[in-house]
């Protein structure tokens, strides 16, 4: 098997830290089993117990019975998809299945969040955050997606605390793309490099939306129509924080923009006095008003537009507005809530607030105490995202089956009801998850995959044609997506019989046809075929008249095209 990032299991790994890690796991497992009074492993974490108690109390209030637990392997497939962005490979499924320890869930989570999978974990979350921070549009010259990914990859591999991550994004300076002989590269600049047109309207709107869960974009022109907490002056006062920042187009000889350099510069103010560097904005009735940097909670900072410096006599002056903004955002109570709501929605399908980035009195949360409590614990845990993820995936709501008890249910957020999380809501894989899952299925080489992935994805992205650069994706279960999985290049590669590919290995294995079919099922769906499915598979074998290779290819094609494969369930 060819893998660029070797995964070894079934014993101690060769690396020193792996050995220590495994050894401590053995010790832990031993101690754990020696303590008979301990209940199941998930409630060992107080944060998990907190989530469970809050959710269960809400079930009781709503008079809702949760469904049963998901099967072991359903849960296993789910956590691989959600934590590292792809389905588990056959050996990974079997290893989890054969683990008989009582805390096998914790063990798997620790591994997926540990050193062994660190690269894949970071790669997946780099994809997720690239979409959040700069969208899916691949045509914007002001953004270097590779640069964005490089930054995110290294930030997430080092498990950067979330508050530091946001500070780095908000205060970044330097080149947005890598170049030889340059040391100025800072991929974090890509968050702002494409959002500074028209005085930074997009920077203002996206910063508030992503990091504080506040939708302020419409307050550019008027007070918020139904969120009385957001006024027009606040938009411009927030916007004023970005006025020292400029995205400089750099050229490599030709007329094409080669890269963007994000810099902080003194801002003279629209009135011409840098010590009182104001901006002007227009009310709907045509009146012009003035704004200085004031944060959404009313905190004012220095009105100076000058960057920090020291006069000859030693007196300091000036202020870095973006640094001040980062500090204010980090200490705002909405800061941990916005990301906890986002991460919860990612794992459970719906946030406590929907849309996930529209906080305010007009839009109360479904589980306020849980949102508050989880946010508080997350902040206390040094904004450690891996801890937050561990708590959520070990919680009871995440462990529930996606099967409903009856054809209809009162827990139906897809029809506008508030979510109770009494079952796991089935959802589409993200395109990146599908892409990487098909790579697992093909055992294909991962090198250059990121560039190819972008090209592959671009066929599903359509722009809306506005100055804000919004776009949507047709990767949403509709016909083009189905056709792509029926006949596209990626599926042809996945079902090819090329030497050393996954299918070739299955075909060549010294096994019965039945075992080969089983292997395909485990690889695609992390389960074994039912008896009636085996009958259908035998029909396929018969139809191919002993051409086992072709028959297995046909079964494999069907598995990769199934609803069960493409859905996270």
């Amino acid at each position: 098997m060819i893998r660029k990032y070797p995964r070894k299991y079934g014993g101690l790994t060769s690396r020193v830290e792996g050995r220590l890690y495994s050894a401590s796991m053995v010790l832990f497992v031993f101690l754990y089993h020696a303590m008979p009074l301990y209940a199941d492993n998930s409630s060992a974490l107080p944060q998990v117990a907190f989530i469970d108690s809050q959710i269960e109390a809400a079930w009781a209030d709503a008079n809702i019975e949760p469904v049963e637990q998901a099967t072991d392997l359903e849960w296993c497939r789910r956590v691989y998809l959600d934590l590292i962005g792809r389905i588990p490979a056959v050996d990974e499924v079997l290893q989890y299945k054969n683990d008989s320890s009582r805390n096998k869930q914790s063990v798997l989570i620790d591994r997926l969040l540990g050193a062994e999978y660190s690269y894949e974990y970071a790669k997946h979350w780099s994809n997720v955050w690239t979409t959040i921070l700069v969208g899916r549009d691949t045509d914007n010259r002001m953004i270097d997606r590779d640069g964005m990914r490089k930054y995110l990859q290294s930030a997430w591999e080092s498990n950067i605390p979330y508050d530091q991550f946001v500070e780095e994004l908000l205060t970044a300076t330097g080149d947005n793309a890598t170049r030889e002989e340059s040391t100025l590269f800072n991929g974090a600049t890509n968050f702002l490099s494409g959002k500074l047109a028209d005085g930074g309207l997009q920077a203002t709107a996206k910063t508030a939306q992503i990091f504080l869960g506040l939708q302020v974009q419409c307050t550019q022109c008027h007070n918020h129509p139904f969120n009385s907490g957001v006024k027009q002056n606040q938009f411009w006062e927030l916007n004023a924080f970005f006025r020292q920042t400029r995205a400089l187009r750099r050229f490599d000889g030709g007329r094409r923009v080669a890269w963007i350099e994000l810099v902080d510069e003194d801002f003279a103010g629209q009135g011409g006095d840098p010590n009182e560097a104001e901006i002007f904005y227009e009310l709907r009735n045509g009146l012009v008003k003035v704004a200085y940097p004031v944060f959404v909670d009313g905190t004012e900072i220095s009105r100076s537009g000058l960057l920090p410096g020291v006069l000859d006599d030693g007196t300091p002056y000036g202020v870095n507005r973006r640094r001040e903004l980062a500090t204010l955002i980090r200490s705002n109570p909405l800061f941990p809530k916005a990301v906890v709501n986002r991460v919860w929605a990612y794992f459970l399908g719906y946030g406590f607030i929907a849309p996930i980035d529209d906080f305010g009195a007009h839009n109360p949360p479904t589980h306020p105490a849980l949102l508050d409590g989880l946010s508080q614990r997350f902040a206390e845990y040094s904004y450690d995202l891996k801890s937050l993820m561990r708590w959520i995936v070990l919680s009871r709501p995440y462990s529930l089956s996606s099967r409903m008890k009856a054809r209809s249910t009162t827990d139906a957020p897809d029809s506008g009801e508030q979510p109770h999380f009494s079952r796991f809501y089935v959802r589409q894989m993200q395109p990146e998850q599908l892409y990487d899952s098909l790579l697992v299925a093909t055992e294909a080489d991962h090198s250059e995959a990121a560039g190819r992935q972008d090209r592959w994805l671009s066929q599903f992205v359509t722009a809306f044609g506005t100055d804000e650069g919004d776009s949507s994706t047709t990767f949403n279960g509709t016909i083009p997506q189905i056709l792509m999985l029926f006949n596209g290049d990626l599926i042809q590669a996945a079902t090819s019989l090329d030497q050393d590919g996954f299918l070739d290995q299955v075909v060549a294995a010294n096994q019965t046809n039945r075992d080969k079919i089983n292997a395909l099922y485990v690889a695609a769906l992390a389960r074994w075929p039912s008896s009636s499915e085996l009958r259908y598979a035998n029909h396929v074998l018969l139809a191919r008249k002993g051409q086992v290779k072709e028959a297995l290819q046909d079964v494999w094609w069907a598995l990769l095209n199934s609803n069960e494969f493409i859905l996270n369930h």
Partner: protein
Amino acid sequence: MDKKSYRSETCVQRSRRHFLSHLGGLAALSTPFTSFTNSLLANAEELKKQHKSAILLWMGGGPSTMDIWDLKPGQATGGPFQQISTSVDGIAISEHMPMTAKQMHHLAIVRSMSTREADHQRGRYYMHTGFVPNPNVEHPGYGSLIAHELATAVPSLEIPPFVSVGGGSVGPGFLGTTWAPFVVSSQGDVKNLESSVSQERLVSRLQMLAAIENRFIQERRGQLPEDHREVVGKSVQLMSSSQLAAFQVSEEPASVQERYGETDFGRGCLMARRLVEVGVPFVEVNLGGWDNHSNIFGTLADQRLPNLDRAMSALIADLADRGILDTTAVIWMGEFGRTPTINGNGGRDHWARSWSAVVGGAGFNRGVVVGETSADGREVASEPYSSQDLMTSVLKALDISLETTFRAKNGRPMKIANGGQVIPGLFS
């Protein structure tokens, strides 16, 4: 001609019969395949004459309607454009729309649109659905709604009932994925239509697929697994359909292509006509680039309006010449208009309070103007109309019952078009 995009008709028809003989025993994927078979029995020609369709010309970004349909020459807000007379006495429009002016007798301008959503995303949603965005429910847009109401009248249709040329539309909301827009580029290239295996193998693959899909659906995991099966059925149908030729604008005579304009929007409008002819109930053609915060007049005069004028006038005239304008509603609108005040960069900003939309064909009055704005264009000076009102009027023009009510799974009834009022001036 792109060989991958579609195959010649005779070959397709022969192979389809062959294909179908194999699918006969495929009860598992029953619903889509039944309609597949039925479609062959229907008399396509007969149905073609009865069906109704709509074409939405979507102006993404928010066009400045006071520089196109409702000019204010001589006013401080008026900008540099002059008006010209049209084929209808007393109606004048922008000098940069000369060809459309000659088709005015087929169209109706509503000059008293007045809405409140001046953000792109919210405006796009509101103008497409008749509802303001609501966190608890996603509403279907024009295309999904009208396709849902009209598709049953066209059982012979094998291609998706809602085609979006160039994207930019909104989704099916609570109607579900099966009513989602089928997005194609103006080149009409539908990707990945060719199977890499023989039809015999494709059939056995589909039978295997049906076994897996059905098992998963029977486990009661909600709507998505069922939607997937239905879309699979529709995709199979599409792969073998001769109607795919409708996407091939390049099959039109060169003179017709030239008449619509060699632009994405021109090809999109021509494709819309071809799609309507095979029975597609709803086509949306996207023309972006109207978000003119700076240098608006140069952009409009040199780029946007010549492109719009050529394609729109060709579409209207062509539909009329072919006798299908009477069964085809045409709607022209964007998410909002633009500020009467011209800003410091020679542009206009977002403005929802007073703007124009244009309709034509189907059951609409033709050659009329409905409503008016104040002298400087800042206010609607007559009865104001909303997105709901416009949508209700389009439904009426297509003879879709205004009493239609949708019931979400939670039992909450929702009136079609949010209970808007018919705009009286659009009907006699």
